């Protein structure tokens, strides 16, 4: 009787699906690394659980963080996910670089199958579970503060988005311990990912992780767009919005229109794999070209979903650290919108080599070059913003400068790739790999790190350590050049991407340098963690309770650091593009409100965490064909949504007296603080009160 019971319970799970069992049976270095990664997930997860239990913080975490609908808490949790996943994906990148450097006419130490999983998870994680959470977290934290709102338009939906993303990221981690991941690359091209060629669980993990994440992102996009349209404070017209809000808006629009094609693509692939459909199979009329079009209809706007928020960060950072208003605001708005629109017109350049007519390729090639125009305009606008300013080389500013110079190089190789005849030569080679890393590392990672250093004091009330920030910055920049410039050369020499072994001795020196670069990048990440540790340790010296450590002009700087739950005791009214600069120039930036009123904030809800966990459980059941589990997860998820609709007490009211108490406490900090000039903003003298400059 046990025979049919196991498959019914455990689906297609077998002991061989545990990396530990595989490593026991075949103790090769490749398997041991796999088992080690799985062990790290298990031990790390247990360690976190034990630590929280030992500290007795479960209640605190549950009340203040997991069930909180506060956009600031949700934003921070997104960034935590981003850093966690960045750590994993960067280690994977280092492993791949080491393997290629070791495997020149040699087997190396990572087996082909393991290598293929590494490049698939590296890409999938970096895009969906590092970049997306990072920028979503940044928008979540900053955008409502910048538009003078107390939360996003749909706080519960926000939590659902977060927890779907967390559930999907969790699924990625589970795939290290149970089973294996896809080997089909981050785009999951069929027919390779179809049952006929990849019958294992790998592509299913990929499909469901990406699907959960993409649903979360679509919901985030809707949430942000409505927030920006509807919740701006009085006086904040569209053309008074900070640049970061503009880029958030454009990114949200892109999310709304670009994520559904991805969800559709993965859903159709799932139909092929689960129900024997033939959308993208080789046989019975399936056609993978449809998949290529769908995935890149998402994939190209996705690039701008990733890059635009960073552009917004740079606009804020460069203006602030040049002590100037942003040059060419209107130009930047037009350029941002132009990029957002054009991003939907270029997707074919990802497959110039698919055999369509030369005219089609030419049209899409020219459209691709056209995107360079507004992007170039933005770079010059930032340069003119520094012109006749007073530039301070803070860590955020250093990232911005490194971005401008590095991004231009990536743009150049992008124009080269926009020429179909040149794309034919370097498509699918390391030249392409170098190009998109050259866009996304400066264009996303540097931007998010600049934002992290810029807004961290706002979020936590103390500045990050400057010295370690500079060390980390140096490593990110040097590491980038070392790791990726050689790849251009290798690509021009015809080295294909995703190669587990190399047979050209001429590639050797370049692969060695790229390997060193990868190690430098890893030390950059390590330095970031050291910086966080040092900063927390020295937090008392670096506190900026008044909330304006950089003498900036946006509304987010006009409130305490960290801000109170309700953000603004009184919703501000603005009549300027940099309202806080205006208030400071008028000499009365911290005028106390005439009277305090009770504020209604969204009450905590466990709907978000419940849906995230149930989403991941459903996905896990689907991956392993444990139909009972998938059914349970789905039913429980629907039950959760139904149950939530019966909850009537959706708000928690903060009494006026409490608001007054918090606000007056902050005003005491303001009175105690001495205003500091810009030359000493990096010292403990900076308590977040800026000296108004002449």
């Amino acid at each position, binding site marked *: 009787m046990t025979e049919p019971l196991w498959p019914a319970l455990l689906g297609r799970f077998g002991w061989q699906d545990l990396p530990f069992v595989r490593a026991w049976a075949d103790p090769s270095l490749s398997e041991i690394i796999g088992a080690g990664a799985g062990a790290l997930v298990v031990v790390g997860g247990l360690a976190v659980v034990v630590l929280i239990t030992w500290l007795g913080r479960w209640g605190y975490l549950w009340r203040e963080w997991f069930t909180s609908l506060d956009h600031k808490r949700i934003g921070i949790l997104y960034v935590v996910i981003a850093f966690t996943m960045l750590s994993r994906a960067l280690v994977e990148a280092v492993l791949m670089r080491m393997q290629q450097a070791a495997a020149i006419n040699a087997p190396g130490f990572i087996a082909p199958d393991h290598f293929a999983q590494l490049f698939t998870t590296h890409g999938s994680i970096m895009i969906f579970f590092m970049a997306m959470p990072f920028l979503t977290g940044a928008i979540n934290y900053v955008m409502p503060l910048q538009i003078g709102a107390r939360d996003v338009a749909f706080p519960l939906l926000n939590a659902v988005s977060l927890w779907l993303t967390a559930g999907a990221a969790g699924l990625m981690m589970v795939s290290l311990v149970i089973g294996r991941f896809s080997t089909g690359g981050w785009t999951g091209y069929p027919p390779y990912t179809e049952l006929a060629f990849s019958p294992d669980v790998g592509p299913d993990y990929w499909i469901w992780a990406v699907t959960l994440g993409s649903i979360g992102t679509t919901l985030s996009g809707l949430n942000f767009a409505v927030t920006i349209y509807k919740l701006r404070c009085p006086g904040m017209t569209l053309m008074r919005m900070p640049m970061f809000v503009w880029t958030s808006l454009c990114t949200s629009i892109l999310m709304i229109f670009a994520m559904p094609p991805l969800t559709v693509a993965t859903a159709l692939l799932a139909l092929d794999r689960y129900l024997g459909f033939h959308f993208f199979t080789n046989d019975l009329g399936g056609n993978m070209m449809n998949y290529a079009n769908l995935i890149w209809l998402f994939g190209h706007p996705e690039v701008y979903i990733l890059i635009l928020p960073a552009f917004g960060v740079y606009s804020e950072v460069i203006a602030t650290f040049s002590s100037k208003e942003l040059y060419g605001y209107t130009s930047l708005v037009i350029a941002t919108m132009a990029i957002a629109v054009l991003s939907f017109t270029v997707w074919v350049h990802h497959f110039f080599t698919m055999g369509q007519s030369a005219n089609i390729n030419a049209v899409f090639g020219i459209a691709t070059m056209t995107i360079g125009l507004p992007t170039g305009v933005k770079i010059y606008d930032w340069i003119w913003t520094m012109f006749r300013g007073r530039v301070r080389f803070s860590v955020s500013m250093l990232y911005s400068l490194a971005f401008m110079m590095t991004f231009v190089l990536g743009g150049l190789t992008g124009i080269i790739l926009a020429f179909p005849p040149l794309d034919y030569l370097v498509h699918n080679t390391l030249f392409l790999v170098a190009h998109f890393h050259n866009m996304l590392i400066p264009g996303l990672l540097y931007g998010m790190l600049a934002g992290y250093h810029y807004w961290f004091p706002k979020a936590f009330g103390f500045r990050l350590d400057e010295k370690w920030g500079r060390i980390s910055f140096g490593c990110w920049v040097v590491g980038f050049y070392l790791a990726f410039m050689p790849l251009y050369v290798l690509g021009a020499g015809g080295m294909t991407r995703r190669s587990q072994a190399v047979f050209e001795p*001429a590639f050797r020196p370049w692969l060695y340098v790229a390997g060193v670069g990868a190690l430098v990048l890893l030390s950059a990440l390590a330095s970031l963690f050291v910086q966080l540790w040092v900063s927390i340790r020295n937090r008392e010296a670096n506190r900026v309770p008044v909330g304006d450590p950089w003498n900036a002009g946006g509304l987010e700087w006009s409130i305490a650091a960290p801000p109170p739950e309700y953000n603004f005791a009184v919703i501000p009214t603005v009549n300027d593009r940099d309202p806080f600069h205006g208030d400071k120039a008028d000499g009365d930036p911290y005028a106390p409100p005439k009277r305090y009123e009770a504020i209604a904030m969204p009450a905590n809800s466990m709907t978000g965490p419940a849906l995230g966990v149930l989403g991941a459980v459903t996905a896990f059941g689907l991956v392993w064909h444990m139909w009972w589990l998938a059914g349970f997860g789905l039913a429980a998820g629907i039950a959760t949504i139904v149950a939530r609709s019966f909850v009537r007490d959706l708000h928690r009211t903060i009494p006026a007296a409490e608001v007054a108490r918090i606000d007056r406490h902050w005003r005491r900090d303001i009175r105690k603080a001495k205003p500091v000039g810009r030359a000493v903003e990096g010292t403990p003298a900076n308590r977040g009160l800026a000296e108004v400059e002449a």
Partner: protein
Amino acid sequence: MPECSLIDRLSARVRRRSFRKRSPSLGSTRRRLATAIAATPLAFVGGCDVLRLGVANPAGPVAEAQWHLLLIVGAVLFFVAAPVLILTPIIAWHYRLGKKGNVYRPTWTFSWPLEGLIWIPPTGIVVGLGFVLWHYTIALDPYRPLPSTQPALEVQAVALDWKWLFIYPDQGAAAVNQMAIPVGRPVHVSLTSGTVMQSLLIPQLAGQIYAMAGMTTQLNFAANRPGTFRGQNTQFNGLGFQNQKFEVLAMPPDAFEAWVARARATARPLDPAALDGLMQKSVPPEPILYSSVPPDLFQTFIARTQEPSR
């Protein structure tokens, strides 16, 4: 690549020397490490080798035109990038906070002349490059037959896991992982896949095109000097992907005829048994020649996809 020859000679000398230095008699690891570090920049001079494997060392009219185009685009882009690369550090440093006596205009936010400067010239460059792009995209369309007095050599390429099958329908021969072509005569390749999507690239001869099951794509190219050139699949297709390389033998016409004759004399027909073997996932250690090919084999591959597969 004549520009490279001096560097090549230098680097060859360097490599000889560094081999000698790496002799085990050195003993101490630290000294060996120091030698390795000292040799690193020199090894880079030898890095020129890598470019000889790619389009920078073209061996046919298509790759030559592509290389030519790359030089044009590169030259234009140099002027596009230079202002940003120069202005960014200069302006940031010149207007640094600590420097006394700078003009400071915190509320200066717009200038029509500057706006014109950052919108109009780049637009002009994109329009100009657009014409170049259009011209070259049409001229270098992989489907476009090369102008020649000779008829093109027909080759049918079938992408398999993890190898390439090249069928010569007019010669009645076939080869796995070896494509012989006569120098100076255009080659017309029709591609399809007997498995997942793959992409055929011969960096020194022509850019790539996908091979997809149930569909035919085309590639035209030619070699203008004899030699052995590396071809490969660039689209990941499984565990043997990294090994899926083949050689293109560009040879004088009479040598090509001899190659065909040799293939036909192997007495190894591409019969159903041989075909079954090829359909298995494998990396053949050596190229294989076949003496005969069933008629319409290429069409058979395309038709396979109309039937349900197991």
